[in-house]
């Protein structure tokens, strides 16, 4: 089974990171998962990868409501620092908000590929993986 190489999860709730990792195990989703508990940490991580010439993550799973810097602000900052290096990086919103205004807001960000409402399930994760692999080939 082919796995997605690198995934970055940004969520301030460690429980969500635990859930993500477990579901990834179950579905054979990703080879490597990095979990950041704040948006600032996430940005730092991405910049470090680029700086060190490491491979960019294929996907970023991003929460919206986080202290200090929230998901929207992360997207603004990310779009600013985005270079061709991140061309193959897809951003998925992973949030407990099912608010339509948030869904619309996400659509306005060109970098956002999809909007997933928690709780994350095996089926959703498998669907994402399938789509990613068929698009890549």
């Amino acid at each position: 089974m082919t796995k997605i190489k690198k995934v970055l999860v940004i969520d301030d709730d460690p429980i969500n990171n635990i859930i993500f990792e477990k579901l990834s195990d179950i579905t054979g989703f990703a080879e490597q998962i990095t979990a950041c508990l704040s948006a600032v940490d996430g940005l730092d991580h991405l910049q470090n990868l680029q700086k060190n010439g490491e491979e960019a993550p294929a996907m970023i799973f991003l929460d919206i409501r986080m202290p200090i810097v929230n998901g929207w602000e992360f997207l603004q900052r990310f779009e600013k620092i985005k270079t061709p290096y991140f061309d193959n990086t897809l951003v998925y919103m992973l949030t407990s908000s099912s608010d339509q205004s948030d869904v619309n807001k996400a659509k306005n960000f060109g970098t956002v590929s999809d909007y997933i409402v928690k709780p994350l399930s095996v089926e959703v994760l498998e669907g994402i993986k399938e789509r990613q692999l068929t698009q890549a080939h």
Partner: protein
Amino acid sequence: MLKTIQRLQQENEQLREIIANETPELPEIHETQGQLRSAFFSIDDDVYVFDKAHRLLTSNIKPEKTGLLITRHEQCYGRLFTDIFPAPFASKLEIALAHRSKTEEIQQFEYCLQDYQVSFYFKISINDRQDAAGRYAGFTMVVRDMTEEKIAAKKIIDSEKRYRSVVENVREVIFQTDRQGHWSFLNPAWREISGYDIYDSLERPLTDFVHTTEKKLLEKLIEDMICGKRHTVRREVRFVNRQQQIIWMDMFVKAYLDDNGEVAGMSGALSDITQRKKAEQTVHESRQWLESINKNIKEAILRVDHQQGLVYSNCAFADMFGYGQEGHPVSLSALFAQEADLRVCTKVLAKQTAFTNKIILFRRKDGSTFWGLSSFMLVVDENGHTFYDGAVRDITDRKEAEQKLKEKNQELIKINEELDRFVYSASHDLRAPLASTLGLINISRFAPSSQEQGQYLDLMEQSLNRMDKLIQDLTDYSRNARLEIETEEIDFDTILKDVLQRLKYIKTIDQVKINTRITAEEVFYSDKIRIYVILINLISNALKYHKYDLANPQINIDITINDRQAVIAVADNGIGIEKGYLDKIFTMFFQVTRDSIGSGLGLYIAKETINKLRGTIKVKSVVSKGSTFTVTLPNAKTYSYDQD
């Protein structure tokens, strides 16, 4: 013969002497005769004396007059009466004489002499004359000229006729009463005006027909007139007609006297002035109405003349514009604060003659301004004189209210936005732990070991605790916003014990030393539940942001009470707060770091509750050294929450 004559002469002489000496009365007789003669010739009536054969003996007719005689009287003496009087008179006299001979009474008759167009009236009396022996000696005829009397009497009759016609045809009621004030005469106008029959009204008291409210007064006036205290009364009196309607009468009454000078009754006139009274009343009422409007309405009403300025203004105008009641000659331009308004208004008036409900900024006498809702009208009188008639209502209050409403509206919009944000955040934050729990349930299905499942259950508990905390916080928030302040004596010891009991679920609580010191000069009164909410949020905040790796972590709670206030200081030696966040920590859902038990509402709720109690909260913090929150709350023992 001669001797005889001489003797007779002597005798006569003697007789004369005798008479002269012996009858001293004779000269008196002579005198009486003279007097009678003088009287005879001086009386006004013509007296004719006839002898037995009805021939004129003598008369007192003056030489220049003829009386009834057909010719001068000197030529009539000795002639028969049938020859000296005109034939009609002579025949009348003849009849009277014939009558006289039968009845022996003094005969009187009247005679009218027509001389050309003029009538002369005479009254004739005839009486017998007798000689000394009592035999018939002829008759005396006295003719009295009645012409003047007759004319006077005729005049009286004519005037009486005229008077009667006047009395019967005038519109005024003419009346007479007796001494008791009962009608004794009423002219037909009474019936016209009152509807009562005259004969039914007569002999009834005048006051019977007067309106009850005036009866007493009128009775008194009549009494005064009868006593002679008053001679006339003139007043407007209300009568009641047969249809029971009020008739206003202008009444003029005068007492009239009998021959003895006593008051015999009253006479007078009543004229119907009901129409006039009604008109007067209408005028009076409308004047009163206008007066009342003038006094009571709050709108300023004014009339401005082009040349003379203000020609009329009401009380409200004086108050509103600050001018005295005298009505100073104010021009329209003095009343308008903005010249542009005046220009526009006069233009509109010239074009359309009126405008209504225009909001204009006016100027008072002292120069201050106010907003007035005004309507104006251009009026041209019959002389071509132009006036501006206007009404102005001071709407400063309304304007202010509008302004307040605007502000309130802005505030509401702000509150609404805040509420929207609140609902958004709260619902999101309520859903987050739920989504986590569902996620945990999902993965626990794939957990091979019960150990792993136990781990997931712990995480579920954590998530649900967070949700529970948020719900509790929301309840506290809503309670604070909703409920009135209820003050009672505060026992800080007990409240602190309850708080710490409640915070026991925070696992780190046992690692922190909590010192409390309460210094009370005075009993403290406040809202117990709100004090609890403030303390639990401050203390749980201090517990959450502690450096547990540090030796000797502690929280010092210091409470000082006096009669005015309580100062509560919660100090920790924890992680502290960065300067940049200090002004944000009291905002809704603000969190510096992720914390598993916080809702992001704690300090916000504390601050809101302190605000409600009209207290203050201050924070001092040094990163890595710790923070001190100082709360000051008024002591309700001396502070009243009713004041505002």
